[in-house]
Structure formats: C-alpha cells, structure tokens
C-alpha cells in the first residue's frame, strides 16, 4: 500500500486526467458491486461516502442516499469490513462528517479506515482552523486529508489550504452543496487560484453531472469528481452494468482527444 499522494501523482505524471466517482456506502445492499462497476467503467479513484445524519454539505440526492444507508444500519465498521474484503485496484477516499470519526475516536478511525484500504478522507465540516488533531493522526497513519477550496476562499487562504491538503485539493466549482448543476460555475477560477500557489493536484467537483462537464472539469483541473449525478442513478435503481456504462461515458468524454 502506498499513499494517496503517491498514487495520484503517479497517474498525473502519466498525463492522465483523473475521474473520481462518488458513491454512498450502504445506500444499497449491493453497494460494493457498484464500486467495482465504477472501477470497471474507468474510475481512477473512488470517493466513498460514510453516511451521517446531518450532512450539511450535501444536497438532497446524497442526503437521501445517506439516510437509506443509515436506515440499513451502515456504520464506519460495517463499511470498513466490506471495503477490506474488496480489491478494487484504485485508491479510496472516504467522505464523511467530523462527528462520525470524532465519535469513533480519531486514531481508531484513522487506523480502521487505513486498514480497510482507504487512503484519504474528506471531512467537509472540518475547516483548516480545526484540522490539526485530525491531520496529525492522518499524517502519522498515512491517511491523506483532502481539503476543499471554495470560490469564496480568499487567495492567501487558498495557499494555506492547498499546503495542508494531501493527495489532492477538492476544488469546489460553486458556492453550493453537492448536487447536479450546469457548467463549471466558478470552477476554472478556483482551479487557477490553486494552481497559482500550489503544485498539488486539483480535482474539480460540486455539480459535475454530465460527460461534457466532466471533460471540461478534467481539462481545467487535474480531475473531475462526479457525485450526485451518479448517486441519483443508484437511487433510481441502476444496475451495476448501468453504473459502469455511465462511468465509462464520463471516462470516454475525459479521454477523448
């Protein structure tokens, strides 16, 4: 096992634009098959949501998936157990909220996630000012702490956020919670601001829903994160094959010459 930095930098060095689909763990009983399907469709890494009762950075689609997962009894332990049994071949990044890992215990949570093969975490409600204890634990445990830069983040702060982020920087394309939208919003500017101060890869997410948007995002940035558009399909009952097909569509758009 290597670190998220190493894995993603390697891909980037190869000139590859990353595609990072988001899926909610436990949203459906066959959720791990959906991860496999996304990998089969061409994902370079996966963002795996661990459900939280009060997901303040998520829009209705991911909220719904999270509630379904909670209703099904999904916990950090249950997710890690299932993830640990997989061999996906791409790096996993867990996305959840502070209270889930704080309540579990920081060191314990970091250890458990890393053990299950998770290489990074995104805690959207963990601002830079509050990150120190979690970051220290993650750094010690080779777990990347992925931070976000928002359109509202002032330039000097972008530098600090990027410096503290590991693996990649999550560039938020717009001032919004997760959810499909049109275009790239302020994404290009946000990526430029990150580029201006840091060599860390920037992946653009928030509202990236279609192959065209994914291509544009992966062109402007180092990669595209596609969440709600995929989760919507999962909630609507898409089969693993349909998930694979959808992800492949994104992949092909990104890779098209």
């Amino acid at each position, binding site marked *: 096992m290597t670190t998220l930095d190493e894995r993603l930098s390697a891909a980037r060095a190869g000139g590859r634009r990353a595609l990072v689909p988001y899926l909610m763990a436990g949203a459906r009983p066959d959720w791990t098959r959906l991860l496999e399907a996304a990998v089969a469709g061409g994902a370079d890494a996966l963002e795996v949501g661990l459900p*939280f*009762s*009060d*997901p*303040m*950075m998520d*829009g*209705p689609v991911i*909220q719904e998936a999270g*509630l379904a997962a*909670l209703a099904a009894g999904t*916990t*950090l332990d249950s997710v890690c157990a299932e993830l640990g049994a997989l061999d996906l071949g791409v790096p996993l990044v867990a996305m959840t*909220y*502070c*209270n*889930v890992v*704080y*309540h*579990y215990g920081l060191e314990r949570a970091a250890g458990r996630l890393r053990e299950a093969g998770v290489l990074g975490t995104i805690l*959207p*409600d*963990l*601002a*830079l*000012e*509050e990150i120190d204890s979690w970051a220290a634990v993650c750094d010690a445990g080779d777990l990347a702490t992925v*931070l*976000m*830069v*928002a*359109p*509202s*983040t*002032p330039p000097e*702060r972008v530098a600090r*956020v990027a410096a503290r982020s590991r693996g990649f920087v999550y560039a*938020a394309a717009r*001032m*919004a*919670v997760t959810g499909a939208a049109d275009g790239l919003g302020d994404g290009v500017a946000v990526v430029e601001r990150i580029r201006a101060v840091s060599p860390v890869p920037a992946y653009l997410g928030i509202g990236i829903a279609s192959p065209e948007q994914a291509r544009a995002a992966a062109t402007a940035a180092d990669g595209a994160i596609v969440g709600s558009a995929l989760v919507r399909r999962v909630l609507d009952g898409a089969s693993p094959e349909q998930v694979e097909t959808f992800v492949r569509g994104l992949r092909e758009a990104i890779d098209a010459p």
Partner: protein
Amino acid sequence: MSVMGAPDGRGRFGEFGGRFVPEALVPACLELESAFTEAWADPAFVAEFHQTLRLFGGRPTPVTPLARLSERLGLRVYAKREDLAHTGSHKINNVVGQALLTRRMGKGRVIAETGAGQHGVATATAAARLGLDCTVFMGEVDTRRQELNVFRMELLGAKVVPVTTGSRTLKDAVNEALREWVTCVADTHYCLGSVMGPHPFPWMVREFQRVIGDEARAQLEDLGVGVPDVVVACVGGGSNAAGVFAGFADTRARLVGVEAAGGSAIGHGAPGILHGMRSMLLQDEFGQIEEAQSISAGLDYPGIGPEHAHLAASGRAQYVEISDDEVLDGLTLLSETEGIIPALETAHAVAWVAGAAGNELAPGATVLLNLSGRGDKDVAQVRALMRGGG
C-alpha cells in the same frame, strides 16, 4: 479566559465551540467575527443596539417580584420578564443585534432557521423593521404544526421555506439554512437563533442576549435584593440562559440551566460536532445525531450551546432536567398565582423551581427566574394536552 468572557481565538470555550463548517462558509464566519468584534467595540453600534431594543423591542423588561408564588413555595422568587419583549420572548434581543450587524456589513438579506417559529417570527420582525429581505427555513413537519407562525412570518414579509429533508424539524432546518448560506454568503447573513453554531455565533448571540442579565442584575439591586442565590433559566440552544447567566457569572449566584428531559444534551449527551460547533449532543453509539423529544418545540434540539457545555464541565453552572409531565404543572402554577402564562419552554424553569423549593432550594432563598417567553403561542397545545385531546 474569565468566566463567560470571550472565547479563545478559535472560538473555544474550554474544549467546546470552534468552527466546524465547510470551507465555503469560513470566510463568511471570519468576516462576521471581525464585523461583530469591531461593531461591539464601537460605542455607536452598541448605542444603536440598545436604542433599538429600547424604542422598538420594549426594553428594559421589568423584574417582577412574584409574591404569591414566593409565598406558595417558601422562596423569594423574581422573574425577569422577557415575555414582555416584542414578539413575546428574548429572541428579539438577538435578532435586533444581528439585523443591525447585517446592515452594517452591507448585506441586504437574512436567512434563519426556526423550530416552532419563535426565532423565525423574531427574525422576520427585525428584518421588516430594517427593510431587509428575509427567508426562514422551517421543517415541513413544523410548518404544519405551526401554521399560524408561518403566516405571521409571511405577514411580516418573509418567505418561509419548508424543509423536507431528514426529520423535517429544527435540526434539519439548521442544516438547510447552512446549505442555503453556502450559496449566498456574499449578500446574505445567517441569523442564527441561539448560542450555537460556528464561532462567532455562540459568543455573539450571548453578547446580544447578555442585556437580560445585565439589566436584571441592576434591577435586583434597585429592588434591594442584590445578587440572588440562584439564577435559573430553561435551555434549548441556551441563549436565554446564557444571556441571564452572563450578568451573574462573576457573582456567587448559583446558575441553573433547565433542559427538557427529552432534549437534555448535558444530561444524556456526549461531546460531538454538529452545526459548526463542538458541544454536548444527543447521539447514538455511532455518532449519528438523535432527535430530541420535548413537549416544547423551543427545547427540541439535540445539542446545546458550547459555552454551556463548558460551564457544565467547569462546574460553574449546573444543568438539570424536567420531564414533560412536570411542565404543565409549572405552567399552571405560574398562571394561577401570578397572572403570567409562561411559554412551555419557560415552564420547565418554573417547574424546576417549584420542585426544588424546600429541598435543593433552602427556604427563603432568592431566585431569579428568567421568564424567557410568554405562553400565548402554546395555549392551543396546552389545552389539547390538558383535555387529553392530543
């Protein structure tokens, strides 16, 4: 940090507080922190705040000696009458402060969350008074339970957005307001309703509410009572309690916060992170937030302001619980003996005083009861409860 002084640079009260928000909101929180810090140090702003509370909000509210209740309980009970403030509770203090600050920051719009509607009505009120646009997020379940408060907000020119996510109650209204704020921080202020949320809200709201305690301290002095033995207030998020405690934190007065048994974050919660703050929270073994259950909508919150978590941890204040069953007795007791129908929230504090009289409270003890709000909003519910009509 002195007791109930400003929090530290990260917005911490001891181990609690902080600022746990998405990066998109951090700049707005920072802007708010500096705007508030600066405004609160500006005598012109402070004067405008107090003048607005005086000319518009009905301050100072009196401290009423409760002679008949005192006789009944063998205590000397005084009530700080926030029920007489405009819109019927202490909520107006906070919203006037935040609305004035909104204008000072050059923003033209406020958003707010509300549970039963008290903070929503208060926010809509302050917004109307200052000519600000106003949108209030309210759990869809609550919009149906409290349709008259929805209409009140609309009369005041506010837009009410029913929240259909999660449990569709207060907790979700906060989430939704935070989500909305992410999209409009540039021109919109989030007018949070209690001493909760990310720094600087817990501190700022307490400062806007401390007028309760500061007034009461002087008024008890004028009445010849001096510092009371006990200061008691109900606690939902904890703003009325924080406001009144602030006036007595540096005295020997015992501070008692009364939580609803079904929403007792100190009594039954554990440390955790929600709504931008680290505090005591009702949560399950996996850190999922639980819903509070209380007869009174205003105490129906699974958390508590971080400063209260700290006051509890440090022992400066004590937090007790009152069950739904005891609340109606508290409400009727004050109504019949003093001609004041308290809010169900407030009735928790009354019930605690009544229950503690003669044991935890020594005969003749002086008690300052923060009468956080009037019961008019609750009369239909109380009637249904008393008649067993549901």
